[in-house]
């Protein structure tokens, strides 16, 4: 087969899986929330409410689309588009598994292995805020604008700590390619052993970057009605909400690839699995690890209360940023004295 065609198929599969997982994340989150609050959760549509996401999707499409007359029409539509686009673009560099051999041809379960994979990821994440900013501003509503402004300052603040946490990771791994990072963890320990502090900083920043509780101030309903998406209705609102779930899924994949060995699992070369079967088991383990982190996102949301805005800024600039710098410094010292330079 043509390699370009294979890539196209992989892109389609990744796209479909991402959307499917994001759809069912909404159901999962409501079920977990219900469990944590001693409720039943959605149970009307289908067995255990499994068709609830479909019902929600139909509802979203059927609702009347309202574009406020005082809004900036083009930018109002552009906002959710950018949110969705950047959310979907991040999945490109994630390695989903090892090599798959079909009809004598070997190909990687990854859309593309960029040699600047981490930078690509970081760049796309830093663009994600434009969707929220443009959407919030174009709504011509003060609550939307406040939400957009909160989102932008929050993302800029936490991007710095996140970037510095990644710098320490790049120091120990010596590569910017996600595939190489994952393969190195097959040979040695998972990176969490070398970068525990970096992992914690990255995790906290991932919560802030995806606008999830306890950092969901851009859509803080007690102060800002709906935050940046106050004026949105129908599927445009759906895009904003959906992008958040995709971001959550992709963040979990990135955390697993960076710090928890990606698709590798312990003793994978000792149990006698080979070829395609090993790859499938690896992908299964990858999804298992990712599921845990997606669950962790829900778990935190229903456990911790929301931060106040000054607390959020203090945490970002006065705690996480110095900690990340200390982390880089200590990592450098250890690498120098153990001769791993």
């Amino acid at each position, binding site marked *: 087969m043509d390699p370009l065609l294979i890539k196209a198929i992989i892109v389609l599969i990744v796209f479909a899986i991402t959307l499917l997982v994001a759809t069912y994340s909404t159901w999962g989150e409501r079920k977990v929330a219900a469990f944590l609050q001693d409720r039943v959760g959605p149970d009307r549509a289908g067995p255990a409410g499994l068709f609830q996401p479909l019902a929600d999707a139909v509802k979203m499409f059927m609702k009347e689309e309202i574009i406020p007359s005082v809004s900036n029409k083009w*930018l109002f539509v552009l906002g959710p588009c950018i949110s969705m686009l950047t959310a979907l673009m991040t999945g490109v560099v994630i390695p989903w598994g090892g090599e798959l051999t079909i009809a004598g041809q070997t190909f990687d379960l990854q859309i593309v292995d*960029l040699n*600047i994979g981490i930078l690509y990821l970081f*760049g796309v994440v*830093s663009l994600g805020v434009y969707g929220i*900013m443009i959407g919030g*501003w174009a709504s011509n509503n003060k609550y939307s604008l406040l939400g957009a402004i909160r989102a932008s300052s929050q*993302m800029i603040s936490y991007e710095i700590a996140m970037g510095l946490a990644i710098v320490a990771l790049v120091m120990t791994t010596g590569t910017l390619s996600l595939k190489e990072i994952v393969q190195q963890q097959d040979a040695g320990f998972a990176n969490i052993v070398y970068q525990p502090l970096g992992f914690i900083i990255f995790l906290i920043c991932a919560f802030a970057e995806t606008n999830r509780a306890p950092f969901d101030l851009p859509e803080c309903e007690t102060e800002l009605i709906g935050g940046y998406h106050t004026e949105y209705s129908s599927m445009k609102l759906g895009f904003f909400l959906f992008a958040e779930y995709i971001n959550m899924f992709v963040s979990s994949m990135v955390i697993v690839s960076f710090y928890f060995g990606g698709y590798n699992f312990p003793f994978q070369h000792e149990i006698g699995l080979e070829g395609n079967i090993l790859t499938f088991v690896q992908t299964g383990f990858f999804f298992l690890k990712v599921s845990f982190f997606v669950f962790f996102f829900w778990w935190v949301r229903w456990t911790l209360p929301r931060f106040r805005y000054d607390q959020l800024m203090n945490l970002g600039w006065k705690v996480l940023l110095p900690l990340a710098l200390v982390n880089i410094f200590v990592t450098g010292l250890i690498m120098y004295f153990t001769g791993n330079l």
Partner: protein
Amino acid sequence: MNITQYIFWFLSFLALLSALMVVFSKNPVYSVLYLIITFFAIAGHYVLMSAQFLAAVHIIVYAGAIMVLFLYTIMMLNLNKETEPQKKTYIQIIAIVALGLLMVTMIGSIKGAEAAQPIADAAGIGTVEKLGDVLFNKFLLPFEVSSILFLSAMVGAVYLSKKNLQ
């Protein structure tokens, strides 16, 4: 023409058009958004010159961070026609003269410059490994000095933004 050339022309057109729109847009928010498109087009040029690292850093720093701050500030300013500051005529004339002088300098420098020679080993010249090698071996001192310059700029910005500093 091959595909690279088509992409080059498209990116150049996009960069120039959006750069002009930055100047001609009435709404400052539009100007910022057009400037972001310009940055993307230039990042595309970097990729064409096989400088992926530079392209990625360009997007992260300019489009991802600096322009977000620009947009942030402009949204806060709430600019519209009524509150637009009108400059005095003599200031406008001074600005035009200064710009003209700058243009003369630029034209002179471009005219005197020789056409750049293509580098023999062009492939992979902009990769992280090559760039890091040059930056941390050949140009280590200028690199460190420029980082101190950035640090002093940061300290200066913090100092200026503190209102009640004694």
